[in-house]
C-alpha cells in the first residue's frame, strides 16, 4: 500500500513517499496510523490532507505552521501551491509588512 509520513501528532498533512493516484488508499506512518483515500493524484514527495482544513486555517507540518489554506481542503486532497499560500516574505500583501 502507498505510504505517507505524518511528522507530528498535530499535523494536518502527510508526505507521500510513493507516487499516489486518485482513489488509492494510503497507509499513514510515523505519528499517524490510520488509512485515508486519496481524492486526487499526489506525486512522490507531495502532501495530502489527513483531516479537513477550512479556508484560512493553518497548514501544520513538523508541528509547525507552513502556510495557510486558500480554499477548503478535504482529507485525501493534494495539498500544495494550488490551495496553500506562504505567510513569510510577502511584500505583496499588507499583512506581510
Amino acid at each position: 500500500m502507498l505510504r505517507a509520513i505524518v511528522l507530528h501528532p498535530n499535523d494536518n498533512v502527510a508526505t507521500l513517499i510513493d507516487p499516489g493516484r486518485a482513489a488509492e488508499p494510503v497507509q499513514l506512518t510515523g505519528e499517524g496510523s490510520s488509512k485515508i483515500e486519496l481524492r486526487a493524484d499526489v506525486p512522490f514527495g507531495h502532501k495530502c490532507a489527513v483531516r479537513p482544513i477550512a479556508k484560512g486555517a493553518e497548514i501544520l507540518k513538523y508541528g509547525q505552521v507552513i502556510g495557510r489554506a486558500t480554499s477548503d481542503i478535504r482529507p485525501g486532497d493534494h495539498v500544495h501551491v494550488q490551495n496553500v499560500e506562504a505567510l513569510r516574505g510577502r511584500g505583496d500583501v499588507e499583512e506581510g509588512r
Partner: protein
Amino acid sequence: MQTFIGYERADGSVGTRNVVAIASVMDNSNPVARAVASAVSGTVLLPGLFLRGQLGRDREITLSVMAGLCLNPNVAGVVVIGLEPITTGELVARIKKSGKPVEFVNVQPAGGTINAIAEGTRMAARMVREVSKIRSREYPISKLRIGVECGGSDTTSGLSSNPAVGIVADRIVAAGGQVIISETSEFFGAEQLFAQRAKDAATKKRFLHEVAALEKEIVDQGIDLRGSNPSQDNIRGGLTTIEEKALGAMAKAGKSPLVGVLSYGEQPKAAGLHFMAAPAPAVENLTALAAGGCQMVVFSTGVGNPIGHPVSTIIKVTGNRNTAETFADNIDYEVTGILERNERIEDAGNGLFAYVVSVASGELTSSEVLDVRETIISRFGMSM
C-alpha cells in the same frame, strides 16, 4: 581518537586538499588567470568579478571574500593575477599575513597578455612543484570546519538527507570541530525554533536580527518571495512554502547549540556550530562557506543539484530514491534507506560521517572528478 589525513598550513589550519589557487583580482584579469590555470595541473581557477569601480561594503566584500578563498586551508599557495599593482597589492597583503606562499603578476607592467600569461605560468608551475613536497599526515577531527547546505531541495530533504547531515554536524561539533549553516532566507518560518539553541541572549538576538533584516528588505521592496523561493524545482519536488522548506533545512545543523553568528564569508574563531548570513543560491553560498574556511561542504539535495566549488570539496547527499537513480553521476552518497527501508536516521548519518572522513582524507567526490565547479562572490550594491 578519529583522525583524517590532511596538509598543515603556516597558520595552523589543515587542508583536506593541496592545491595552488590562481586568483584573479578583478574581471579584466580573468583571461590571463584562466590561461595560467589551464596550463598548469594542480591549480584551481578563482575568477574575479567586478572590484574595479566597486565601493564601500561591496568593495570590501569582494576583496575580503577573495582573500578568504585564498586563505582556505585547502589552498597551499596562491598566484594572484591583476591589472595594476596597487589593487593587486591589497589582495596580496591580506594573503601574505597568513604566511601562505603568494606570488603575483600584473598585466600592465608585464607588458600585456602574452607576457603576463608566461610569467604567471612559470610562477604557478614552480609553486605546484614546491607545494607537492608537503607531506600529509593524520590530524584530529577538531581541525575540520565543514559547511552544511541544501540545494535542489524537495520534501525528502527535510525527512531524510538533512537530518542525516545533522548527525554528521553533531559528530564534528562533538569532536571539537566547526560547522557552519547558512542560507538566511531559508530560515523564514523556522528561525524561532532555531534561535532557542543559541548559547546566549546576544547570539540569539544577532541571529534573529539577520533573518528579520533580510525579510524586511524583501517586504519593503513589495516583493512576493513566492516564485523565487521555493524555486520551481523545489515546488515540483513537493515543497509548498518557504516555511516548509526552512523547517526541513534547519535539520542539517543537527542539535548542537548555536555558538556564533558570522557575516558573509567570515571565518569562525570558536569551535562549535555557527550561522553565516549569506544568500541561499548554491554557488553564492558555497563561495561564502569556502571563504569562511570550510574545507568541505556536506550538501543535501532532493531533486538534484550538481554544483561543486574549486576550493571547498562538496559532498552531494540525497535521500530521494528517484534522484539516487536518475542523477547518480552527480550524487556522492545516498541515504535512501531512511525512507525506503526504515533505516534509523542516526545509522544513516553515522555512515555518512565515515564517508565525510574518507573524503577529508583524499577520496574524490563527483564535482571534483567531473570538474563541475563554480565560484561567485555576491554583489549587494552598485559600481561607479
